[in-house]
């Protein structure tokens, strides 16, 4: 009896393995690619056959039909108010509140159908969890019946939310997910409003190239998540174009907070430039450990973490001189003059207005997350006004045609994919306990401090004042 049952099990396993083998054989990659493959910078090649692509929905309304104007327009989204991305989520929420106040009180409401309609936001805490994101967005759409959707923060969560919006044919303004892949899935309703990951950190290299042509050795140490992976791909291709040498390129899994083994190797390599791919928590940890290990470099760029004021609070003078990319920093003058120079319209609060309102409402400086979510709301308002409709297709069309400047920088998308091509991100640096925008030079608020102080100097209290 015993032998027979083992035989049966063995037989079943054999059958399964054979089936799997057949499957692998049947699904082997074709030798001659009959479909035009667009080489994408991603790991999994997503072939986009040109014929199969369905065009973006165009609005069928050419004549503005009388629409029923609601008494308020509800905008729905989730935010990671707790969990791994809680810091960024909470900061973003503050921006949203300022935007709503501006639209309703300063601007007077959305101009729609001859009336001024106030806006309202409806949001949930997705706890940085993807399955919650999915169910909460479903809820926003089917239960709360919001008029429009905004995304959540960070690419991994946005990737979960976008298909839900797509499923219901609702416009999804992606203000918080920077992965290029988001706009490469063939979604028709996703519109991204800030600079994508591939262009995010790369400008640091442009800046260094102009400051110090002798600094050639670059070290990359990054978290292997959606966002940072693509950031690094962008950095690598830029490095190649500008003639840098990548002397160290290591990744660590999500959730790592002890980088000792990686840093010991890094110490031996002695790079000129260190660039990290992180979010807030690990960015903070890695900076501290770089200091602990005394690993110095002419310039250290840390992703995401330093743009949050808590970074300096936790690290003190250790944070001096640290460079970081940012979608936006207070003081950057994307204003009506800038718009005029470009020959496009300006909409929304000026950077000054936003800054003042934010300070008044929250008693702290705004960060890029606050600004980005606020901006998404402003842009949505503009799109509604341009389309004079609440129809999702019409709004999507309006976004395609939109080319304006807001306090957050320019907005212009690729009509077909929703990819953001107008926005300009900046590079910042902590100098004397304050964040200073050091690049690009036409909107900078200060000069770069280069090379940055050593850890020993910083522990002794030295500040990066150029």
């Amino acid at each position: 009896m015993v032998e027979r049952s083992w035989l049966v099990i063995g037989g079943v396993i054999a059958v399964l393995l054979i089936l799997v083998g057949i499957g692998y054989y049947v699904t082997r990659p074709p030798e001659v690619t009959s479909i035009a493959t667009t080489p994408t910078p991603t790991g999994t090649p997503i072939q986009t056959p040109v014929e199969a692509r369905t065009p973006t929905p165009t609005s069928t309304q050419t004549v503005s039909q009388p629409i029923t104007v609601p008494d308020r327009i509800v905008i729905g989204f989730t935010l990671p108010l707790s969990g791994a991305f809680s810091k960024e989520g909470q900061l973003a929420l503050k921006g949203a509140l300022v935007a709503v106040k501006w639209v309703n009180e300063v601007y007077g409401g959305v101009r729609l159908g001859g009336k001024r309609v106030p806006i309202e936001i409806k949001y949930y805490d997705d706890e940085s969890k993807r399955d919650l994101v999915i169910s909460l967005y479903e809820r926003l759409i089917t239960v709360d019946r919001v008029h429009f959707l905004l995304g959540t923060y960070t690419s991994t969560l946005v990737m979960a939310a976008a298909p839900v919006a797509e499923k219901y044919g609702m416009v999804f303004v992606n203000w918080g997910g920077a992965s290029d892949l988001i706009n490469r899935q063939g979604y028709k309703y996703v519109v991204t409003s800030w600079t994508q990951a591939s262009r995010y950190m790369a400008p640091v290299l442009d800046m260094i190239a102009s400051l110090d042509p002798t600094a050639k050795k670059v070290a990359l140490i990054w978290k292997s998540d959606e966002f940072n992976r693509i950031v690094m791909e962008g950095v690598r291709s830029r490095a190649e174009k500008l003639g840098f040498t990548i002397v160290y390129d290591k990744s660590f899994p999500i959730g790592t907070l002890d980088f000792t083994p990686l840093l010991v190797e890094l110490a031996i390599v002695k790079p000129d430039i260190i660039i990290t791919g992180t979010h807030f928590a690990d960015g903070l940890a890695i900076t501290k450990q770089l200091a602990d290990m005394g690993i110095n470099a002419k310039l250290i760029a840390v992703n995401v973490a330093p743009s949050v004021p808590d970074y300096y609070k936790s690290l003190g003078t250790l944070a001096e001189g640290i460079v970081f990319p940012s979608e936006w920093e207070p003081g950057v003058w994307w204003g009506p003059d800038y718009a005029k120079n470009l020959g496009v319209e300006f909409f929304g609060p000026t950077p000054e207005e936003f800054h003042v309102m934010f300070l008044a409402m929250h008693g702290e400086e705004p960060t890029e997350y606050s600004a980005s979510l606020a901006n998404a709301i402003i842009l949505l308002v503009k799109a509604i006004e341009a389309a004079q409709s609440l129809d999702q297709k019409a709004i999507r069309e309006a976004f395609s045609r939109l080319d304006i400047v807001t306090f957050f920088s320019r907005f212009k998308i690729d009509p077909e994919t929703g990819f953001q091509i107008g926005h300009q991100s900046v590079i910042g640096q902590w100098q004397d306990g304050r964040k200073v925008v050091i690049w690009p030079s036409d909107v900078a608020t200060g000069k770069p401090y280069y090379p940055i102080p050593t850890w020993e100097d910083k522990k002794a209290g030295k500040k990066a004042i150029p």
Partner: protein
Amino acid sequence: MTLSRAHTLIPITLYAILLGLRLLIEITGPLGPITGQLLTLLAFYIALGQAFNIFLGMTGYVDFGYVAFIALGMYGMASGVVRAYEAGLPGYYGIAFGFIQTVAFTALLALAVGGIALRLRGAYFAIATISVNEGLRYLVEGLDLWGGSRGLIVSGPLIELFGSEGFSLLATIISDILVFGVALLALVVTAILLNTRIGYALKAIREDEDAAKIMGVNTTMYKILAFATSGILGGLLGAAWSFKIASIYPSDAFNILYTIEAIVLVMLGGAGTLAGPIVSGILYGALKYFLAGVLPGFQLLIFAPILITVIIAAPEGIVGALRTYLPTIRRFIA
């Protein structure tokens, strides 16, 4: 125990009602507070509970790494679809291949782990299974399997293969039907097990494994059987669910939360009972759904003490307690 017709028909009818409601809502839209999403969640938890019950409930062993089966199911189906897509084959090939992979992977894992871990008892078994789950997760990341920590993105290929409309259908109603299917399959298997010698042997193992061994029960064989069945069903659940998620990352797929929920579902409902997972699945799913908007972040804080109280006060779960204190119910609920 021999199950009466009522024992099996009542749960099946319940499933039919839930599925019917779900299909109805697809056409009419939400009925009051009952949305399609709520029913999806209920279906998922019922299926999860039924699948896990076959192992935890019937043998009394805690597989703390159960989520590995669900993850393998997700990856199996998703990678199958992506591979077919990249080979230029139509979507159905992908799903068929994905299905085969799911069953194959979970069966293999069950045999491999079962072979090693099921020789161990209680606590050691728990540790071994946790290690498997975490180990598998880091293996996927470490060797860059299925995209590693870059994740496996299915939504793009699915849209290209089935079109936007097809993708939408797949991710909603079709996925839900599949989940109900897994729940039904698990229910049937549980019923069969309870009715036959195998269930009897498993119960003996749960009560006193040494005695069972002495009596000549081939404990290893039966344990592996229960383990594999439970695992494969978990994998099928993961596969059905993968259409909804659109992109799979190791840290999410191997999330220990699923294991926790599975344990709660089985213990709350009644370990080893037929109807237990249904009761707890509905309760837990509904609670989770309605609390999500109201008290975000408090769910686990509420569930954990409940779980502890249940374990201490009523270890036989809701159904078990009902059967003990309301003998008339025994004819209808197993």
